[in-house]
């Protein structure tokens, strides 16, 4: 399960960041922010590929000693970043992929809300619950 999940706007500012409360929140903000370097690079490398054949899942962005950072970018260039504990070897690529897909669906629901303004901070409770369900449970 993830320790931090973030949604980043097309313009690269955060729309939503949630991390496990036990850890230093600021650290995760930095981790997510720095991972955008790799996301940007991957997106620009992908630009040449056809739009409809594009893979939204960006895979492992970069590994640090303690965490693995995964990325996902929607067609409207909204980015999802997930930070997973390095020691969590049980999490396979496929599971990460399906988690992202779940996240994307939930994000789509948020966007579909007529009272939500694209570009605003996400404050949806449903989205929040969904993210919480994907996070490491802290007892």
């Amino acid at each position, binding site marked *: 399960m993830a320790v931090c999940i973030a949604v980043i706007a097309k*313009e*690269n500012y955060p729309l939503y*960041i949630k991390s496990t409360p036990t850890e230093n929140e600021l650290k995760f*903000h930095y981790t997510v922010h720095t991972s955008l370097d790799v996301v940007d690079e991957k997106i620009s490398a992908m630009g040449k590929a056809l739009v409809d054949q594009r893979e939204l899942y960006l895979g492992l962005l970069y590994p640090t*000693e303690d965490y693995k950072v995964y990325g996902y970018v929607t067609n409207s260039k909204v980015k999802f970043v997930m930070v997973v504990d390095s020691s969590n070897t049980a999490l396979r690529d496929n599971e990460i992929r399906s988690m992202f897909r779940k996240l994307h669906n939930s994000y789509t629901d948020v966007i579909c809300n007529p009272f939500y303004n694209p*570009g605003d901070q996400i404050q949806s409770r449903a989205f929040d619950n969904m993210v919480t369900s994907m996070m490491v449970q802290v007892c």
Partner: protein
Amino acid sequence: MSPSQWDFPVELCCRPMAFVALTGLDVIYNAVHRAVWDAFCANRRADRVPISFKVLPGDHEYPKCRNKRTSYEWHIPKGILKTGWMNKHLNLVPALVVVFYELDWDEPQWKEKQSECATRVEIVRQSLQGRNTKVAVVLIQKKTPLPPGKLKGQTFIESVKVCLRLSLKMRQLENAFYEHAQTYYYTEIRRVKSHKEFLNKTTHQLLFVRHQFKIAFFSELKQDTQNALKNYRTAYNLVHELRAHETNMLEIKTIAGFINYKICRLCFQHNTPLDAIAQFRKHIDVCKKKIGSAELAFEHAAWMSKQFQAFGDLFDEAIKLGLTAIQTQNPGFYYQQAAYYAQERKQLASVLCNHEPSVMYPNPDPIETQTGMLDFYGQRPWRQGVLSFDPNDPEKEKVGILALQLKEKKVLHSELIITLLSNAVAQFKKYKCPRMKSHLMVQMGEEYYYAKDYTKALKLLDYVLCDYRSEGWWTLLTSILTTALKCSYLMAQIKDYITYSLELLGRASNLKEDQKSRIEKNLIKVLMNESPDPEPDCDATSVKSSQKLWADRVSLAGNNIFTIEVQDFVPFVQCKARFLAPSFHVDTPVQFDIFLKADCPHPLRFSKLCVGFNNQEYNQYCVVEEVYQKNELFTQGMLCLTPGKTKTFFFKFVAKTEDVGKKIEITSVDLILGSENGRCVILNWRGGGGDAASSQEALLAARSFRRRPKLPEGEIHWESLTVQTSTMIISRVPNISVQLKHEPPALMNEMYCLSVTIQSHEKTVAKDVKLTAGLKPGQDANLTQKTHVTLNGTEICDDSFPALLPDIPIGDLQPGEKLEKTVYIHCGMVGTRMFLVYVSYLVSTTIEGKEILCKCHRDETVTIETVFPFDVAVKFVSAKFEHLDKVFSDIPFLLMTDILSTSPWALTIVTSQLQLSPSMMPADQLESYVENVVLQTGESASECFCLRCPPVSSGQTGVATGSYAVSWKRSSAAKSIPVRTVITLPHVIAEGIPLHVNADLPSFGRVRESLPVKYHLQNKTNIVQDLEVSVEPSDAFMFSGLKQIRLRILPGTEQEMLYNFYPLMAGYQQLPSLNINLLRFPHFTNQLLRRFIPTHIFVKPQGRQADNASIAAA
């Protein structure tokens, strides 16, 4: 222990090379020897064999070889690897000793020299007793060598392996040395391997590692890197098989680190970077958990940090040698990780080494050893060579740990961390990771802050702030700003302090309300020239010194005015400037609003608001100032901003008349906080407000569909406000009317009359009225050349007249006065033209109690089509009105002109005139028949002129006819002057004819009445003409006269033929046809003849003879 305890030893990091000692060389005093030495050492490039040479004296004492052990049974090793071993084999024990000796083959004292050389060799061999080191002799000779065959016979020294002259190539000599060295290392490897069988797994575990390491190291010396790598790998696995305990953990980790370093280094050397990375990962994963003694946990962090740093260095070195790294796998990550461990080390040290100042460093120093060095790598100095897992002397152990902890306390951790971070920054910069770079710079800044180097900290933090601001990561921004604020507080940098406070109070900061409130209070203190309260969590001693600094600042009456450009960050006051309209007439005041909104927790009062324009003269009109006492800072006032509420300031001023047509732009908005007697902060917005975050907010607000809640009267939604920083000043609306009267379309070449009526509706006198009329500029250049405008309609314009008449003075117009002006336009070409009529005048008005003289103007544009007034068609016909392709000389023909009116207006043809060219003669009077004829649209007027063409010289075919001039005018403009239009007539082809026949006959005949017909036959040639004439009978006529005749006509003369025709039938009858046959001119046919003479005649019926009276009556 030195602070660089964690650094790898030099002998580990260098590239091992075969060690060859050179003896018998006197490099200082002997030039030849010097040359030999230089040849070996100077310019050693990569293509030469890897040997490290050293000059040693002939009697040099090499390290003694210990007695060979015959059995390992009772031997217990004290450690894994001796500290001196690598150095010994790199620099002390040579693989080959070369004895240089000067000896020529023809040396006279051969015997003595020979034995001296033998002695020298013997000394070296003595010194190397027990070692496998080879000894070589090189003879330095001055003469050419004897043939090689003789050389073989020289066996006077049994150990001579090499005997070459200096004149031989150095390379060959070197290669020979190298071969021997390799053999030496090979035997060394064999020797070490041979020990293996004596070892047993229980007592000699350490030796397994040591021997494996030695084999690998010798392989490296032998330049067999593949085997070296293989052996190092084995050694690495063996290290981890050792039984680890707290007491030997450091030793195991140290050796593991060494071997790992070697493996990674060789992997990079073999260009298999992935293997290197994999090995390193494995190494880290295995060792991460091997912390060892908890009291010395910082040592583990330091060791980890070193591992990462060393790998980063190796990686970086490999890149310099041509390896390519990528964004996600570059040395930066390793330096970064090294920095993290360095930070962890610092943290652990601060916890573990947190001794009372009274705790003294133990004496005697337990870390000090007798030699100043350890015997084995990674052992504790106070219990070297002790293998038991339990410290046999707990007291000694304790003292030792204390000594290490106190030592650690003195380490400048921040410096280490910053170095590592800056290494990482340099790498990430290279691999396109701007955000990672910023992040590391933040960490560097924070580290500088901990190291109390606030200037550097602030510099770094300030540098990255804009990156986070521009990307809108407010949490990170707030965190950095908080540190920056602390730095600026501790340095008492007033301007920075204020700037960071402004932003921390703003909407981009997500500090808690109480924090904001504290910062605001501090800000107000600073503004009132007092010292602010210290920031929380600051170092106590630093706070003390900074308080002193602040006190100095207060007493120092220096520059207390700070201008802060707020455009580039997100201050707590937002500003928007908006002109009420995109343009203002010069006779109305320019109006605009300045909106201000504060985001700070408490209301704040400003002292002054001023607006700057591109024309600075207006600045004076747009100032709001409020004087208040110090204690009134929070009380209500005009310039007091309540948090969250939008305040509007309305301004108006009268624009200058010079600025008509120009843009007025707000270039700056200055909001002044504080007063002159305290400290004064000028918040300066370039342009009409806005800051680093406002453009994004505006975009979001524009996208928003959300309906904004209704606000109480007088309040405004900040988001709904747009910025409008410029307005145009446009001239006053004219109060006159301009009417144009004309009759389009214009006819080509006529003086087209355009009448302009100007009427003033002004209440005062319109002064200096000027009229500009003519072709509107910016049209086709041809039109400009072919259009002329004049005020004088009585003469036709020529090319000297302009296309536009500018600024015709008209004088003053009284209120209500009407004035008419006529302009004549001459269009020399058909087409559509745009004409401009522009009336300008001056009028004085009063606005806002100010009298201004406004320039007003009104312009009218009219599009006029120009058309041809008429078409003239010309044709040539014979006297019989038959169409003529060509005319015959001297024979009259007719020219017919046809004027077809195409004008929509009635035309009056004043007169017409035919002007003949000299080659054309009139046959009768050429008077005009169309004088004063009026033509309506589509009507035409025709004329007919009888002309004759005199004989032309042969060869000339076309004959100019002349021109036809028509003078005309519009029927409606009777008084205007006529326009003369000249049409050039076409050329005509003239041809000579040999014989001309014309007939004299009455215009009609009557049945049964004689009809006399006379044919004139004229010879037009210069020769006598023979001709046959015959008349063919016709049914309608009887005739008398010569029916068939042959005759001759002299040149230029004429023959008459007389016939009497007697008509038999009434009606249009064919005459008996005259046929003429010219014998000299067979081309002269009857066909041609028919052109000249009539073929038919009208015959009237016979009237009743008796009824003459009735005829007379009719």
